[in-house]
């Protein structure tokens, strides 16, 4: 299992477009992807799960990957948490 904490900078938080791209990417990995914000936890392969975390700019998110390709998933998904998207 791999885990690392990232700070989201996308100004609108992590709604429609970024969360969609993230979930698609997460779905392409065989490992389990879980996100934590404070005491809340969500399935990283569900955009509804991501939404209910309430991620906004400046949120600190712990990303956990568990299973096959967990290292690559952590790296690629971590990058997606820390960039700005066209909206």
């Amino acid at each position, binding site marked *: 299992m791999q885990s690392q904490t990232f*700070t989201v*900078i996308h100004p609108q938080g992590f709604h429609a477009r970024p969360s969609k791209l993230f*979930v698609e990417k997460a779905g392409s990995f065989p490992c389990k992807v879980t996100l934590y914000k404070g005491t809340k936890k969500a399935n990283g392969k569900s*955009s*509804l799960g991501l939404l209910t975390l*309430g991620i906004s700019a400046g949120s600190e998110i712990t990303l956990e990957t568990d299973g096959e390709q967990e290292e690559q998933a952590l790296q690629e998904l971590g990058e997606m948490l820390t960039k700005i998207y066209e909206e």
Partner: protein
Amino acid sequence: MNIHLQGTAASPGIAIAKVYRLQAAAQEPLRITVADPAAEILRLREAVKQAKADIELIRVQTLERLGERKAEIFEAHLFLLDDPELIEAAEERITEDKINAETAVHEVATGIAELLRSMDDELLRERAADVGDVSGRVISKLVGRQHSALSELSEEAILVAADLTPSDTAQLDLNYVRGFITEIGSRTSHSAIMARSLELPAVVGMGLQAKRIETGMTVILDAVLGSVIVEPTEQELTDYRERKRAYEENVARMRSFVDRPSLSADGHEVELAANIGSVEDLAKVLENGADGIGLFRTEFLYMGRSSLPTEEEQFTVYRHVLEKMNGKRVVIRTLDIGGDKELPYMDLPKESNPFLGQRAIRLCLNQDELFRVQLRALLRASAYGKLAIMFPMIAVVDELGAAKRIVEEERVKLEAASIAVSDEIEIGIMIEIPAAALNAGALAREADFFSIGTNDLIQYTMAADRMNESVAYLYQPHHPSILRLVDMVIQAAQRNGRWTGMCGEMAGDADAIPLLLGLGLHEFSMSASSILPARELISRLSREECASLARQALDLGSQAEVLSLVRQHQSRSEH
């Protein structure tokens, strides 16, 4: 029954028409126990398939009608139907509770929507509407009914509904629909966003009072002020027909200024730039045809979080803004913290006079590393556009010298590491302290440009705390003492071949613009929504006339006299 109601203006415009009320959709489906959950799941999958086919059709229609960005809403809807937390969760519930698919979908969707609505984020609450829209469509398919009632419309109408789903809004027939009113929703609802791109007047968030509006009633929808007049009087109708005409004429006139250069009537060119406080403001800057960004406040990067932003994070944001502005100048102000803006995680000592204390550049020069991180991010970003760096709260030449030395040191380090840095970065200062205005000549030898921050300049010149209501009368941007300081700054800059901008509220003020143009201000930076009115105003002003107007104003004794002089001039030039 003549009633006046108030809501939130979500998409500007004025409409007058009869009402068509959309009936509230689906109530709660009947809960039925099923004998064969596996067959029920198959029934659900079939309904999901049909719902997806419908949404795909709406997506394609929206793509043709409103473009890619709006069509993405329906891509997201399709995506929701693949979400494990929605349909898969409903399937699990069918198996576990042996209930019908309608109930399972309704319960799962209601649970998610309630969770989203309970969160302290307007945008998230809006996503609850998306969940309701897609799940409602699936339930409609399961029970075999039409998902939308909008197709019934056959004459000009203003729609009234509890809420409009994104799919309802995207399918509005613009031959008939003149605007809409909803009980719930906000400016950021999908339906509000679509209304703005359809240029359809909309007032949302009316609450239960909207229940009093029924099909067939005549209403005036004033989506500029967010008000609705139900069954207006003859006088109100006449009045609003005229307002509607004037409003539409004005919108068309302002819009015609989007792509024009910012020229005075006698052909003198100025720059009309925008102030932004976050990346989100960019869309409005581009929409309103700004000549650049005259003030990018970077404080938002540092606020609402628990630690300092990294160089990488800042670089990403600066680069994004520079790229978006596509070669137009972007003036980025270094951290202006202290005064009324605090950062809890920096644990700065309490000061008894924070506005006169260690704020802005004073703090940055004292906390060297904090400053260097931001400067490195700026220097790296400079390779992606036309960057100008601006230091806030400079009082004396030494401060500017020290700040410039640090910039140079960081530039040398980056270049040694083969990181590209533009060699055309302009380095300027805010003029907001009277001492800086009085000594502008010496500063102009060191700075590439000045930008006058009027809010603070007025506060410090008048010695009046701008947070203190009881001295608010001293906030007098048009006072001759302020104008004389502005004049000194511009003159000093011109003698040294520098340009002067202004990034306080005054720069967008219709009464100040003739004076500032007359004094020789080059760049006017204001909120994006003020740019087109300012460009229109300047196009009617003669620079030469304004110059003599400004000279007269400098010799007056009070703000009231200045204002009456400007307004006289304005009314003369209008006739």
